[in-house]
C-alpha cells in the first residue's frame, strides 16, 4: 500500500456513498432507492476495510461483517414493505404513497 493510498480509498468510498445518496433521492422507484442504500452501505464497508488494512487490525472486518448482516436484514424488510405497499397498485412510484403527510 503506497503512502497516501488510504486517502484514495476514503475518497472513493465517499464518492460511492454520495452516488448511493443520489440514487435514493433522484429515483422514484423504491427498488432502485433500496439499491442506492445498498450502495451507501457498501461504500462504508469499503472505508472500513481500507482503514482496517491501514491499522492492521481485524476489527474493521468484524464491523464490516456486521454491516453486511444489517444490509441484508434491511433489504429483506425493505422489499417486504415494498411488496405489501405496491403489490396492488398499478405503478410502483414512491411519490404516490403520501398518506403519512402532516
Amino acid at each position, binding site marked *: 500500500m503506497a503512502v497516501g493510498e488510504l486517502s484514495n480509498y476514503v475518497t472513493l468510498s465517499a464518492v460511492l456513498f454520495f452516488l448511493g*445518496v443520489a440514487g*435514493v*433521492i433522484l429515483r422514484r422507484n423504491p427498488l432502485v*432507492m433500496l439499491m442506492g442504500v445498498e450502495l451507501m452501505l457498501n461504500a462504508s464497508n469499503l472505508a472500513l476495510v481500507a482503514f482496517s488494512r491501514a491499522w492492521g487490525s481485524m476489527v474493521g472486518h468484524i464491523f464490516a461483517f456486521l454491516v453486511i448482516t444489517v444490509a441484508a436484514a434491511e433489504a429483506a424488510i425493505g422489499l417486504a414493505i415494498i411488496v405489501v405497499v405496491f403489490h396492488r397498485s398499478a405503478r410502483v412510484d414512491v*411519490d404516490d404513497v*403520501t398518506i403519512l*403527510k*402532516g
Partner: protein
Amino acid sequence: MLHHAVGISAHYPLLLATWLLPLAGALLLWSTGPRIQAKGAVLGTTVLGAAFVTALLSIPDALRAADGYVGAQQPLVTWLPGMSLGLLLDPLSLLWTLVITGVGFLIHVYSIGYLAGDRAIARFFAYLNFFVFAMLTLVLSDNFLGLLVGWGLVGLASYFLIGFWFEKPSAVAASRKAFVINVAGDVGIMLAIFILFAQLGTLSYGGVFAHVAQLSPSTLLAVCLFLFVGCAAKSAQVPLHTWLPDAMEGPTPVSALIHAATMVTAGVYLIARCHPLWDASPDARAFVGVVGAITALVGAILGLGQWDIKRILAYSTMSQIGYMIMGVGVGAYQAGVLHFFAHAFFKAQLFLGAGIIIHALGDEQDIRRMGGLARKMPFALLAMLTGTLAICGIFPFSGFFSKDAILYGVLEHGHPYLYFIGVLTAAITAYYMFRMLFVVFAGQARTPASVGEHAGHAHHAPAWLMQLPVALLIVPTIGIGWLAIGGEQSPWARFFEPIFGASLQPLARLGMSEATSSLVVTSVVLLGIATAFFVYATPQALRNAPERLQREGQRMPGMLTHAFYFDDALDGLFVQPTRALGRFCAATVERDVLDGGVHDITVGARWLGHFFRSFQTGFVRAYALVLALGVAAFAAYYVLVGVTR
C-alpha cells in the same frame, strides 16, 4: 390571644347604657322584627325612652369638673398606641345627646302613629334605634377615630332610613346618593386624621388640642378644610348639599329626626368640638363662614321655588344650618350651638306638623293641592304657625334669640358682608315660610272633600299619638330663647363656659348694640311676611288662587326648578367621568389589550404550528434529501473545522 377581645372597664355605667341601649334595641328589633311587628314599635320607643332617662341621669357626670378637664371620660378599646376609642361626656356632647335622645324619643312616639299599619314597622324602628346609636357614637367619642366611626355609621343609618320604602326606585337612588356623598365626607375626615396622626401621633381630642401650636399654619389649614369637607357632606353645605332634598323620599319622621334635628348638625358639632383648631387658623374660619353664608342664601332662594311641602322644609333646613355653620365658623360658637338647639325643636315641630298634614291628606305633599286647611286642621295650623314664627325669628320665639345671636356674633367677629347676607336670608326665609303657610292654610280648600283632622285614611293609631309629640315640641320652641338672655351671665353662656370660655377672640368695636341689630332683623323679617301676605293671602288673591298658583308654576325660572344645576354639575363632574373610565377600561384595556394580547399569542402559536406542518410533505424522497443535506452539513463542518485548526 383572643381572650382580651373587647375589654371595657365601666367607669360610667350610665354613659355606657345611654350609648349601648339603642344598639341593643336595634339588634333586637332586627332579629325578631318580622315576628313581633307592631309591638316592635313600642319596644323601640321604650328603649329610646330609657336611653333618654339615662342621659338625663348622667348630666351631673357631664358637669363634674375634675383634674383639669370637664366631663366623664370612659376609655373603651385601643387599636394602637396613638389610636384608641373612648367616650367623653362634657357639656357640648351632653347637649347633643339630650337633643338626640329627647327629640328622638318624641319622634319615636310620633312614628308609632305615623307608620301604624306598615308591614315593616319593626324594621323602621330598628333603623331609628340604630341611627340614635350611631349619632351617639359620633357625639360621645373622645377622639377623631371614634368620630369617624360614628360619621360612617350615621351615613349608613340615613341610607337605611331614606331607602326604607325600597320598592320605590326614587327612594333607592336617593339613599344611594346620600350614602355616596356621605362617604365623600368620610374621606375628607380620614385625610384630616392621617395628617393629624402623622404630625402629632395621637388622635384623641385632648392630645390634639394640647399640641395645636406644633402644627404649621398650612397643615392646620389643611386639617380644618378637610374636616370641613366632612361637615359640608354631612350638613349639606353648598357643593355637597344635593342629597338633602332627595332625602325627603324617606318617611316624614325620618326627615324630622335626621334631616332636621340631629344628623345634619353633625358638622356644627364637629366645628364646635374642634374650636381650638379653628381658633388657631383665621382663614379657615373665614372660609367656613363664607360657605355657611352662601349655603344659607342658596337654601333660602331654592326654598322659594318648591311646591312639595317637605322640600320647602328641607331647603329651609339647609339654610338654617348655613346660619349655624356661619355662626360657628366665624367663631360665635355659643350662638351657633344655641341656634342648633332651637332649630332642632322648631324644625322637628315643622316636619311633624307637615307629617300630620300629609298623613291626613293621604300622602299628598304638593301644597298646590292643599289649601284652606285652617278650619279643618286647627292643631296642625297651631303647630306650623308657631314653628314658622320661630324660624323667622319673631320676638318671643327661640328663633329670634338664636338667629340674632348669630348675626350679632358675625358682626362682632368682623364680617359685615356675612351679616348683610344673613339679614337678606332672614327676609327670604320669612317670605317662603309664610308663603307655605298662606298657600296651605288660607283660601278655599283645593283638597278632596272627605279630609279632616280625624278622618284621614283608615289608620288605627289614635290621633293624639301624633299630636302629643308636636305639642311637647312647642314648649321648647318658645322657651329656649329665654336661656340666652343676659349676655355673658346668661345660663347658656355659663353652661358652655368650660368649653368655649378660653376661645373668645378679640371682638370688633361695633357701632350698634345687639338690641339695634335685633330691631333691624325683625323689621326686615316683618317686611318679608308682609310681601308674602300681599302675594298670597289678600282676599282677592285667595279667590283666584288655583289659576295664580298655576301661572306661578309655569313662570318658575329654570335656575330654581333645577336647584342651580348643582345636581347635574356633581353628576357631570364626578359620576359620569368615573363611569366613562370604567367603560373605557372594560372596552379597550380589558378586551383589546389583555384578552387581545393573549389571543394574539395563541394565534401566533397556531401559525407556527401550521408553518412547521408544511414540512411534512409526505414524499419519502424529500425526507431523504433533508437527511442528505444534514449529512453534508456535518461533513462540511468537520472539513472546515479540520482545515482551519
